[in-house]
Each structure stands twice: as C-alpha cells, then as structure tokens.
C-alpha cells in the first residue's frame, strides 16, 4: 500500500537527501495545462506529488489554493476527470508516490468504497482528508486500507503526546506535520518544527515525517530536514506560480522548473 513511499524514502536516505514534494490542484488552471504542469514538476526533480481534488468549500485552505480549486472547477475538473488525469500521469511515472489531498465530502460523494477503489486504480498511493481528524477517522482509514491506499493524517502544532502516538500508528506512507497553525498559504512562514516532536513520532513508530504549511523557500526545506523531518511540501508557493502566469503556459512551466530545482537542491543534507 505504501510501497512507493517506502522505496522513495529508502532511496533518498541512501543518497542522504530529503524529499521535496510540490502540491498542485488537479485541473488547475485547466485540465490540459494541469497535466503538462504535473509532468513538469516530475521532470524537474519532485520526489513525490501532493495532488488536490478541487472542492467548493476548502476550509483548510488559504486564498491561493481556494482560487486554484475555483479555476479547476470552472474548467470542468470533476472527480472523475481528475482521477483520469492522474491515471494518465501514472502511466508515464510508474514509481513516483502520488498523494491525494481531499475533503471528506468528495470521498463520500459517490460512495466511500467506490472513491478509494477508484483512487487506487488511478494510481494514488495515499489520501489525506483535510477535514477528518483522527477522532473521526475510523471509517475513512478503514476504507482506504481495504483499497490499498495509505491513509495520511496531520500532526498539528497543538498535538499532545497521546495524539502523536495515535497518529504515529494510524498514518501510513508518511505523516503530514504542520509547519504552523492556520490554513495553507505561503504568506505566513512556517515555524521551525520541533525536533523533539518529530523524534517522539518516530520513536512511536511513525512512518516518515513530512512538513507542510508556510514553506516557500529553500531555507524552509533545510530547517525541516535539520529538525529531523524526512521531507517538505510546498503547496501555495507552487500554486502561486500558476496563478501569477495564467495564460502563459510556457512561462509557468519554466518558473515551476526553476522553483522545484531550487527547492530540491536544498534537500541535500548531512
């Protein structure tokens, strides 16, 4: 189920590198360009991908990713079309881990069992439902695992030891460690993650720890790895490049290539 993640993290450890994982919304800014953008990210050195399913009411997202979801939905990014897009990319990139970021109602829309089965068929390795905390996770995690999908959970800055232990056991593939409180966005920088919390998670048997929220520059990536994390996710910073260059696909891809290259270069450590 989390085989691609395991292989990736093992290989990176061998090379003494952390993972750089960009996030984009599937279908942003439209279905055609989205596919080219995702392939550009992969060709520029992304170790894995976080792919958002656009949702009408993304309460965990700041304005940048909200706008991406709106662009995608306007261009016809239904759940079915997004799954097909992901499946096409999967054919060309068989080894790279794909994580889906969704909201609970999209997983319920056409039935939970059907949702996770389709996600697996189309090449997803993990699913993180942004509005499903561990206290409510049982049905979601169960359906995910039955379909061979790794359920991923978020560690927020206010997690106590009991929650850290719970998430260490429940999250598969990786753990999504929040760089700060609030919603997604690059306007507010991450806080340096607490090395002690990351160490606690790992002692509790957690899968690799990846930091997200407020990450936009190479020094953020370095700070994550220095604290003992295994990688970093940049969402809003990646999406902002798409938003700033709408209508100029070539420039978007060139800037994304540069961004991913710079961020990936910062994952070289130790």
């Amino acid at each position, binding site marked *: 189920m989390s085989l691609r993640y395991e292989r990736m993290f093992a290989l990176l450890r061998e090379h003494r590198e952390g993972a750089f994982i960009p996030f984009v919304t599937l279908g942003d800014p439209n279905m055609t360009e989205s596919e080219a953008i995702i392939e550009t990210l992969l060709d520029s050195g992304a170790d894995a991908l976080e792919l958002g399913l656009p*949702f*009408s*009411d*993304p*309460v*965990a*997202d*700041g304005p940048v990713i*909200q706008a991406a979801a709106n662009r995608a*939905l306007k261009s016809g990014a*239904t*759940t*079915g079309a997004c799954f097909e897009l992901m499946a096409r990319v999967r054919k060309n990139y068989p080894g790279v881990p794909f994580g889906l970021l969704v*909201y*609970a*109602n*999209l*997983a*319920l*829309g*056409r039935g*939970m069992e059907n949702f996770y089965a389709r996600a697996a068929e189309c090449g997803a390795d993990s699913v993180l439902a*942004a*509005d*499903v*905390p*561990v*206290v*409510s996770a*049982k*049905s979601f995690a169960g359906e995910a695992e039955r379909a061979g999908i790794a359920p991923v*959970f*978020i*560690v*927020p*800055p*206010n*997690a*106590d030891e009991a*929650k850290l232990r719970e998430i260490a056991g429940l999250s598969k593939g990786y753990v999504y460690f*929040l760089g700060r*409180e*609030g*919603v997604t966005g690059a306007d507010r920088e991450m806080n340096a993650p607490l090395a002690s919390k990351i160490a606690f998670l790992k002692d509790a048997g957690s899968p690799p720890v990846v930091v997200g929220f407020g990450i936009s520059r190479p020094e953020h990536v370095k700070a994550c790895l220095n604290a003992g994390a295994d990688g970093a996710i940049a969402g809003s910073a990646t999406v902002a490049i798409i938003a700033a260059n709408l209508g100029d696909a070539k420039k978007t891809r060139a800037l994304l290539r540069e961004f991913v290259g710079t961020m990936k270069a910062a994952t070289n450590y130790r």
Partner: protein
Amino acid sequence: MEITKGAFGEFGGMFVPEILAPTLLELERAFEEAQADPAFGAELDGLLREYAGRETPLYRCRNITSGTKARIYLKREDLLHGGAHKTNQVLGQALLARRMGKTRLIAETGAGQHGVATAIAGALFKMETRVYMGSKDMERQAPNVFRMRLMGAEVVPVETGSRGLKDAINEALRDWAGSYERTHYLLGTAAGAHPFPTIVREFQRVIGREAKRQIAEAEGRLPDAVFACVGGGSNAIGIFADFIDEPSVELVGVEPAGHGLHTEKHGATIEKGRPGILHGSYSYVLQDEDGQIRESHSISAGLDYPGVGAQHSYLHSIGRAKYVGATDKEALGAFALLSREEGIIPALESSHALAEAMKRARAAKEEQVYIVNLSGRGDKDMEQVMRSAQGGESR
C-alpha cells in the same frame, strides 16, 4: 459511516481539520462542566431575564385566523433583546468563552441577527469581536451591519463562493484554525461539528420550555403542531426540544423553497439534499453527484444555507419531525399578512414558518392549536421587501 463524536443516529460527528479537534473537545468539556455548575446556570438565567428580557410572550393571534378552525400562538422571540432568538444562545456561549479564558469572539452571520447578538455579547463582556458576513448578505441586510459596527464589532465582508452564510462559516473556520488559543468561535446555528449542535440546542431549549408551559396555561393542553423555520435550524431545535417526547405534538420544520422546489433556486436541504459532510458534521447537504456543495437560494439571508443541523436530519430520518418548504412568495405573503392583520412585522425567516401554519389553518377541518416560533423581527428586511414589492429580483 461511523460517527464517534456527537452522534444523532447516523448523523452528526466532528469533521474538522485536526488542528481544531482539541479546541472542540475543550469546548465539549467546558460545556459539560458549565451545565453541572449551578452558578453558571444562575448567571445565564439572570442575564436572560434582566438583560435580554425573558420570558418572551406567547401571543394568540386575534385576526389572521378568523374564518379558520385554528388558533395560532406566536412565540415572540422577536421581542427578545437583539430582535431574534439568537441572543439566547449567544449569551450562553459568551459565558462559556469567558469560562475557558478566551478573550476574542468570532462569528458568521447570514441575516445579521446572529452577528448582532454576538456584537451585543462582545460589548457586554468586553471581548474583541469579529463577524464574517457574505458581501451579498451585507447588501441585503445593511441595517444589521450598521448595528454590529455601532456596538464595536468588526464586520468582515466575505467575497468567496456565493458570498453568503456558507462562505462566512468557511472564513470563520479558517480564522479559528489560526486563532483558537484565545478565540472562541461563536457558531450561530445548530449545525456544524460536535459539540455545537448540542450546545446550541441546550441554550435555545428555553424557547420550547416556556412555550410548553405558556400553552398549558392558555389552552390547558399541548398544541397540535409546532412550526419553525429551518436554515441551520437553531430556532427550530430550540422550540422542538421539549416537545420531542410528546408524540401527539406534530413538529414541522419549514425550509426555504425559494423560487420553488422544482427549480434550482431554493435552500430546502432536507427535502432536496442528501447526506454529506459540510462544516463539520454528517447531515443533509445540497450537493452535486461528486459532493461539490451547491449554492442555495432564499429571499431570507438567514435561511440561505445548503446545510442543516444534524439533529434535524435525524428527526427527519425517524419521522419525528416533518420538513416542508415555503417559497419566497409565500413567505412575503405571510410577512405582509402578519404586519397588516396583527401589527407585528416578522423576520422573513420566521415568515416561512407562519406561511406553512396559515396554509394548515385554512385547510383545518377541526379545531387546531398551533404554535409558530416567531424567531425574529422584520425591521432588518425592509429594504429587501420593498425591492420585492417593486418587482425587483430577490437577491
């Protein structure tokens, strides 16, 4: 789906970003402790009586029922301080916030009534207050925006989505994810994540408790039916709560049918939606096949919401309460009728409940006693109603 927290049958639950889960559990604990603390209850009762003006009257309509076999009683929440039932539970939650050591309140508002109530509490308890309001609603409920600002609240326009109540809740949740340490999110309706549906019901229960005693005094019996409008469902659950265990009393929730249930322009969540997760709970939701939330429509901003409280979904599923729709036009008709015949200008929200009660009254073949929750007053709706009267498009 398994509901582990705050279940109403198969509905309810706590579906929020992980970062908010500890805050909701803290709120659950604080609420349970407060309910067990006589000093808390005494302080709230005192405020409700001396500050907010409880109890509110149960008034028997003198004129609108003439020629019918029904007697219609209005539970006059419109006379409560603030102009709507919202003040009941806002005072309760504000006391809870103070008990938890929070110094800042945030709230969403649709019609502005909950925002006004929150601004009242913010002023009274000297708490910094921010109210999120869809910019569409700020246009159609301008007097309430002014009221909130007058009492020192900051009103933040929300430009996302359909610029209405749903989007204001999204924005308040986003604020809370970064501010929970010193901020209480004073949710205004009986929807949302656990423990909100329970907290809001318990603080609104006073409506039904009083009405039950008042109708016994007036009629010497229980009513045949209780009517309330349902957006998120706080005034309805408040008046239903003490009647749920009285099987002879029919409970009728009236949803906004907008331009009609056969159109796309309505907010009839229970009648036309299906179960899903919006704003933290599993309940009926207006949505498309993928689960994208649909935009609702109603002439009344306070009912213009594509979700509904989980307990209403449950009462519907077991057949204990019945949910029907009243159109914009029917609500406007009831609004005009009550103003002209009884000298009471009701909120457009409450006019939906009255419209259904009148429909039943006119059809009644035998004597009937009805209670209608007149949840708010209609001063805020003047501009909207004048625009409709001039044949303008309802916004």
